[in-house]
């Protein structure tokens, strides 16, 4: 017979006391609860973080494209008459959508749309040698020295061009066909103006950035056939303009002709206001300044001459999370969502840039 101590018997056979069970249960619950809490928190964050990153990437893309086009705004002909920035003859940025379809009226000024115009090939500037009129005109151009004897100065089918003169009259066209030295054009706006021989011809690109409020998209329109989404889930776009406080002195027509600023004798005919700068050298230009005339140009491309003051552009874009479950309520969310977990919300992101296009400031 082997003597067994009561203690060893308890250890081996007596099970656990209620106290031990409760302590073990509490400790287990604490450990498992902490683990589950960590897991739940991590899961919520892991779901939200990709959407926050997506917001950043969309914001970066929108700003990169806009800033790049704005930087190029106003690049004009390198040779010939009117060589220099486009702003000598027409406004390179206008606060509206412009093009063949869906154009805003010429007297509209929107805070959520901007059209930017520039030349990607300033060396291909030339002049018309025939009158250009109508929606589908034929055009011939001068063999300017910078064209090097190349037919139509290198213009090919599919090239977008601007035709303009000193008065501010301008139109955008696409070259639809080339036959020998004759280019057939299609006007990129309704009711295009007529041009006498000698108007400047220049390859250009036009990009309208427009906030589609219904679809919540920022779109880019090339003025002809391409109208593409830049980024989705945009909840706000605001474009602001800064510029010269002094009234513009261009476009200045050739002697003997008048436009919105000058009579045929070259005398100023419009009394434009002088604006006070806001702390720096540029004055804020309110949108209503662009809707009261005087109007230069013709047809759908008429423009308020105050647009010639623009020297810098500020853009703010507000984006939201694509999914309702990551949006909550409050000032951080333009459109409320269903999220109630403060860790799982992805607040709206506002990105902003200010661009001072070089060609809008040439000669300042």
């Amino acid at each position: 017979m082997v003597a067994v101590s009561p203690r060893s018997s308890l250890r081996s056979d007596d099970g656990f006391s209620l106290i031990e069970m409760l302590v073990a249960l509490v400790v287990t619950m604490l450990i498992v609860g902490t683990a589950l809490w960590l897991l739940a928190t991590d899961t919520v964050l892991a779901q939200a973080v990709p959407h926050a990153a997506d917001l950043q990437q969309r914001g970066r893309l929108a700003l990169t494209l806009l800033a790049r086009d704005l930087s190029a705004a106003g690049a004009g002909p390198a040779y010939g008459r009117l060589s220099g920035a486009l702003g000598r003859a027409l406004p390179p940025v206008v606060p509206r959508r412009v093009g063949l379809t869906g154009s805003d009226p010429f007297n509209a000024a929107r805070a959520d749309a901007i059209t930017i115009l520039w030349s990607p090939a300033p060396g291909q500037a030339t002049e018309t040698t025939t009158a250009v009129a109508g929606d589908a005109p034929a055009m011939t151009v001068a063999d300017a020295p910078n064209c090097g004897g190349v037919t139509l100065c290198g213009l090919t089918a599919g090239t977008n061009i601007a035709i303009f003169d000193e008065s501010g009259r301008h139109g955008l066209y696409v070259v639809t066909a080339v036959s020998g030295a004759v280019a057939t054009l299609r006007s990129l706006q309704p009711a295009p103006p007529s041009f006498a021989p000698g108007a400047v011809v220049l390859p250009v690109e036009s990009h309208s950035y427009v906030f589609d409020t219904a679809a919540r998209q920022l779109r880019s329109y090339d003025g002809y056939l391409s109208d593409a989404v830049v980024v989705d889930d945009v909840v706000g776009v605001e474009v602001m303009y800064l510029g010269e406080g002094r009234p513009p002195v261009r476009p200045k027509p050739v002697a003997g002709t008048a436009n919105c600023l000058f009579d045929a004798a070259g005398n100023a005919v419009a009394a434009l206001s002088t604006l006070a700068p806001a702390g720096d050298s540029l004055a804020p230009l309110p949108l209503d300044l662009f809707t009261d005339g005087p109007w230069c140009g013709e047809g759908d491309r008429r423009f308020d001459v105050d647009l010639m003051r623009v020297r810098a552009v500020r853009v703010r874009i507000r984006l939201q999370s694509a999914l309702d479950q990551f949006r909550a309520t409050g000032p951080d969310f333009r459109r409320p969502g269903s999220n109630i977990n403060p860790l799982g919300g992805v607040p709206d992101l506002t990105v902003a840039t200010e661009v001072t296009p070089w060609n809008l400031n040439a000669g300042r």
Partner: protein
Amino acid sequence: MESQRRPLNRCDEGAALLLVMMVVLALSGLAFAAVSLADLEGAASANDARALAVSYAAEAAIERAIDDLAAATNWSDVLTGAVSSPLRDIDPRPRAPWADVLDIGAMTAEVQRDADVGVGPDQTRWRVFLAGPLAAMLPDTPPGVLPYLVAWVGDDRADGDGNALADANQVVRVRARALGPRGVRSDREAVLERLASTGVVRVRSRWEPR
């Protein structure tokens, strides 16, 4: 009486280890996903910052080239290569700050390919005018991987003098390029004219070749 320990069976071993391992595995997976995403976002941000820096460097390059061209009294000397920018690394294969070797000759040939529309004796012939690291323009900048700058100058074909190495109309073209690590680069081009009346150099047009 001999007490006997009840042999432990599988039901008694508990699931603690298994549970802990599963939780650790799940947390590790989530953490790994988050870190991967952060890495991707970091790389995208770095690429964006690099492209932006190189774009600004291209602006600096063309500004410097314009300044140096304005200081040159005879642009024909520039076109022949007799005069160049004070910032001119004469090594045709310089080593960039990020250790790559740059082939300036190959770059010049590439720029030449899209020099102009048409051909002929007046076609722009690009010649290296400026070459050197941006750091050389910014002597007080802490050492780091700053872009490398190259600028070419060529005669405009509009003077019609039949000689691409002589300036007959006081108009020249300048093209500047900034190069950064991982092949990032940005170009600017401008047409300059020296006004006969004042001698002031004016930029007629300036753009970003795309």
